């Protein structure tokens, strides 16, 4: 460390703006890198380029009108954010959700999780310079979008969940399409294994790169696959099961070292576990209502506050809302996982190469508009 500081003082150090316009910053992120040659001495992520004031918007409109905003914060897992918001409001107001709707939400959310991870898989490989896996992943993702399109009518920002259920029932065609997708993916995993996971270049690019250990993860509040990659089996779906996750049998994949390869492995296995969850949920899907009819048009929740955590594709996400009895929240705050995950870069990047910085940034899978909100 003393050696690093000595270099810092010298005039060999120059700074490089990585972003806000850069091919692999996943949104509008800017990282100011202090470099010595290609070695990073200091990294400083600058956020806020995509700020749209979603939390403030939530505070000056009824709960219902905030629904479409939720899927625009993390647009890659819009269904999950939508789902989480609906959970929070249901808890606040005390709305009962029909069983069928719970299952539908879980299926849709897990499909969305797979699609988010597939996109991460593709873009990560693109960050590493492999273009083809990106398009293969998009091919698969397109199948998910088709499935979700058939029930929600939208391909990215779904606005599918409603207080007390979902906006549209699923039909046999949806179940068929989902089953076909699960079957298709079984073969695809092997392809991805041969193309990427076993690839010697890929392994060398990721092994021991960007290690986030338990202690660092704890300090920065790193959650989600990044936390599980360092061996902590923490998943909100398991620790505080919401909806019907306690009735479904799934594993929580964990890594050991917490390097980029572990993060890759964890996400890759998570996709397979999501497939398992969907498969079981489809088997258990009960008949019944998909939307409880008793929800009033104007919600008048009691005074109080609510905190609901759920597992988005990137980690622990939570809605915190304070109600003063009016139709909209008095205070609305969203805890997003990417913020903690991104800030760990401050400690992880120094000492690595520019090429590694891209690999690390890709491997922690941040969605910047989620941080900026």
């Amino acid at each position: 460390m003393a050696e690093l500081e000595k270099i810092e003082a010298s005039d060999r150090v120059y700074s490089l703006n990585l972003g806000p316009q850069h091919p692999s910053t996943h949104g509008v992120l800017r990282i100011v890198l202090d470099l010595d040659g290609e070695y990073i001495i200091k990294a400083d992520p600058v956020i806020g380029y995509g700020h749209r004031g979603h939390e403030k918007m939530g505070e000056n409109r009824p709960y219902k009108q905030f629904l479409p905003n939720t899927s625009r914060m993390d647009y890659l897992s819009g269904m999950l954010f939508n789902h989480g918001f609906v959970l929070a409001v249901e808890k606040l107001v005390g709305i009962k959700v029909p069983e069928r709707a719970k299952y539908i939400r879980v299926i849709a959310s897990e499909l969305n999780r797979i699609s988010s991870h597939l996109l991460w898989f593709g873009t990560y490989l693109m960050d590493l310079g492999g273009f083809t896996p990106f398009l293969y992943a998009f091919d698969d993702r397109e199948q998910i979008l088709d499935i979700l399109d058939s029930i929600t009518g939208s391909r990215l920002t779904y606005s599918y969940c409603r207080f007390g259920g979902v906006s549209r029932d699923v039909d046999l065609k949806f179940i068929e399409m989902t089953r076909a997708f699960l079957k298709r993916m079984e073969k695809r995993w092997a392809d991805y294994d041969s193309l990427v996971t076993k690839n010697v270049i890929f392994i060398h690019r990721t092994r021991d790169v960007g290690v986030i250990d338990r202690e660092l993860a704890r300090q920065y509040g790193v959650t989600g696959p990044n936390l599980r990659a360092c061996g902590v089996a923490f998943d909100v779906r398991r620790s505080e099961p919401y909806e019907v996750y306690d009735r479904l049998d799934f594993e929580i994949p964990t890594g050991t070292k917490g390097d980029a390869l572990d993060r890759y492995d964890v996400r890759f296995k998570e996709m397979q576990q999501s497939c398992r969850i969907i498969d079981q949920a489809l088997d258990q899907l009960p008949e019944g209502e998909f939307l409880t009819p008793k929800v009033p048009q104007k919600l008048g929740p009691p005074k109080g506050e609510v905190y609901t955590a759920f597992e988005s594709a990137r980690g622990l996400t939570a809605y915190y809302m304070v109600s003063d009895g009016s139709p909209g929240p008095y205070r609305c705050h969203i805890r997003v996982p990417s913020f903690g995950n991104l800030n760990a870069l401050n400690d992880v990047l120094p000492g690595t190469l520019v090429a590694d910085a891209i690999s690390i940034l890709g491997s922690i899978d941040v969605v910047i508009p989620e941080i900026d909100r």
Partner: protein
Amino acid sequence: MGYFKDIIDGGLSLIEGMGVTARRLFQPLITVQYPRKKIPLSSAYRGHIELKIFEETGTHKCIVCLNCEKTCPSGVIRVQGEKQKEKGPKTLTGYVIDFSKCSLCGLCVEICPTSTLEYSREYELVGDTGADCVFDLMLRLAKQVEQREEKKKTQGIAA
């Protein structure tokens, strides 16, 4: 000997990867050449909203309750109504949406008490200015009614 084993294993893994891509050379393409070929829209597709034509009346059922205007999170909808009689229901005179602001949440469609709003199935809506995204749904409705009548006429002649 670990040195040579690493090289050989690495090389084999690369060849395996090349096999995956080579297989794709002989698989059918998945691209749909869009303007020439189109894929069917999903039944749930959400385009911009439009006024539904009911068979029994041959027109919409809007009662100018303004629920859609109030529920819209982005202020997309502008509804105008007039009272034709001193005492009586309002009738719709203007229904304009600014589609450039719309987030397609569908709250207006769900809240409509007479279910006279529905999603259109149009998606080729490119325009040069913001004004091109402003749709007058009354005009649209009038056109659709006209088309329907013409269709009926031609069918009548054919019959």
